[in-house]
């Protein structure tokens, strides 16, 4: 009985934490009103006087300190990284294979015809008549190794310039890397990434705003660079109509170096934006995850070099296995089939990421 009451009280605390009133909870448990009511009142009487909203300035300062510390860690890591790391044999072979593959792919794409006009901007997608994609005109993006732009909201004006505004929430993590922001470096040229899709009321639309949060750039050479965005939003006045067919509106964002100041500014590239732009849709391997849970996010797209190793386990630790002279890391996503023991014959599927190989699957081969 006490246990049941403890659970009810616990649920009420959760509900009050979510913003519900004690009376909402009492309505759910009328049989417990006499016992529950004074306790819920005590909870509110304790919580309310002490609950306050911390100052936004203090929060902003704390966030800046954290961001600086994160950047400092990144710089220290880069400084420690040798200019010419000793590469294992497998990586030399891998690089050679990649180079051959690249030549083949380039030759295939070079001989392909341009996108057919009827495939542009009207790709049918089930249950959506409007898609907003982000792209990046080249300009000064090549100064950056990464340029993360966090899109917080989208505004679309219906009708003419006196029309009402719709606010759309962008996908939480469109590139699925678990890191806030879209890396514009991946979206250069015709590459475009979907940030919203859904149904809009058929009709004319006159303006499209993109509201931007943090913009963080990592210059080639790993210097961190703050990129300015005047007014915190990007605005395009380019009227477009939505009807039965799907509209693929490409919103091109570009970065410019501001004179000799060494600073960079983000602007919309109007000429490269609109519903009639050619684009190549970029889709990443990982699915987008809810912000706040990036530990489950998919691997970044530079982690897609797959390697297969067969051989005998030479050594084994909790976090790694060495097979035929190659050490492969084990993490929580590694699928292990069979018991790993030194001397066992295994087949390892792994992904090369920066200097490490991370096992996606390790299968112990059955003894013959």
């Amino acid at each position, binding site marked *: 009985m006490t246990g049941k009451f403890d659970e009810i009280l616990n649920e009420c605390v959760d509900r009050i934490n979510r913003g519900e009133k004690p009376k909402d909870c009492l309505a759910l448990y009328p049989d417990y009103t006499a016992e529950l009511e004074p306790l819920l009142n005590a909870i509110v009487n304790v919580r309310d*006087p002490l609950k306050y909203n911390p100052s936004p300035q*203090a929060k902003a300062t704390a966030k800046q300190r954290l961001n600086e510390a994160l950047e400092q860690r990144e710089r220290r890591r880069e400084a420690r990284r040798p200019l010419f790391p000793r590469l294992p044999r497998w990586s030399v072979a891998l690089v050679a294979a990649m180079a051959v593959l690249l030549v083949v792919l380039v030759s295939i794409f070079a001989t392909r015809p341009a996108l057919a006009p009827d495939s542009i901007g009207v790709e049918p997608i089930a249950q959506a008549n409007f898609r907003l994609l982000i792209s990046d005109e080249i300009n000064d993006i090549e100064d950056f190794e990464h340029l993360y732009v966090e899109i917080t909201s989208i505004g679309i004006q219906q009708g003419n310039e006196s029309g009402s505004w719709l606010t759309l929430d962008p996908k939480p993590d469109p590139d699925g890397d678990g890191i806030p922001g879209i890396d514009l470096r991946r979206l250069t040229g015709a590459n475009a990434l979907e940030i919203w899709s859904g149904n809009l009321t058929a009709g004319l639309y006159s303006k499209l705003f993109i509201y931007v949060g943090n913009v963080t750039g990592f210059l080639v050479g790993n210097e961190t660079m703050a990129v300015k965005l005047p007014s915190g939003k990007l605005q395009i006045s380019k009227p477009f109509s939505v009807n039965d067919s799907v509209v693929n509106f490409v919103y091109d964002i570009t970065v410019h170096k501001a004179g000799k100041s060494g600073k960079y500014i983000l602007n919309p590239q109007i000429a490269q934006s609109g519903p009639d732009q050619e684009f190549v849709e970029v889709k990443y391997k990982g699915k987008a995850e809810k912000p706040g849970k990036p530990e489950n996010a998919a691997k970044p797209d530079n982690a897609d070099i797959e390697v297969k190793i067969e051989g005998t386990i030479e050594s084994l630790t909790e976090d790694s296995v060495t097979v035929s002279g190659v050490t492969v890391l084990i*993490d929580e996503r590694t699928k292990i089939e069979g018991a790993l023991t030194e001397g066992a014959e295994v087949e390892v599927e792994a992904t090369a990421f920066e200097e490490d190989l991370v096992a996606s699957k390790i299968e112990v081969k059955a003894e013959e």
Partner: protein
Amino acid sequence: MHLERSASKRRRKEATLAVLFDDCYDRIARYAFVRLGDRAEAEDLAGDVFLKALESLDSYEERGIPMESWLFKIAHNLVVDRYRKAAKQKTVPLETVQVRAESNLEEQAVADLEVVRVRRALCRLTESQQKVIELRFFGELTSEEAGRVLNKRSGAVRELQSAAVKALRDLLNEEPPLKEGVR
């Protein structure tokens, strides 16, 4: 080669920490304020929690407790440190605590006295009861998450919470508010 050398894992943990900042900062500051009784100090401590977490990130094991609960563990340790230091250096009378900046001076004074009354009641709970109230009411953790911080099962947290709320009810009844309808 060790797992912690994996750049991908390190970056993932850093990204998780950065994302959790927005979600947890306010709650950690409120949690710290209950013990410290000083807004500025509580906010300063909330910022320190994330820097401390970043310093210790290599030792944080994702397969152990969730990072959010881990942050509250760090917050708890920092609060205890500061509380001890403050106790050695100076004694701040509870009555000096300022919480709100109400426009009406009389209302503000009454609100401040209410804070003193509530904090006095909290101080009379057992240490475990105080911890569970702080984590559940101000840190807004679930009983499971609070259990991970306190190294207790969620059932034990629920029991402790019930006992704490009943004790609070009695303590607050012993000393009624200065003015009804305050808040």
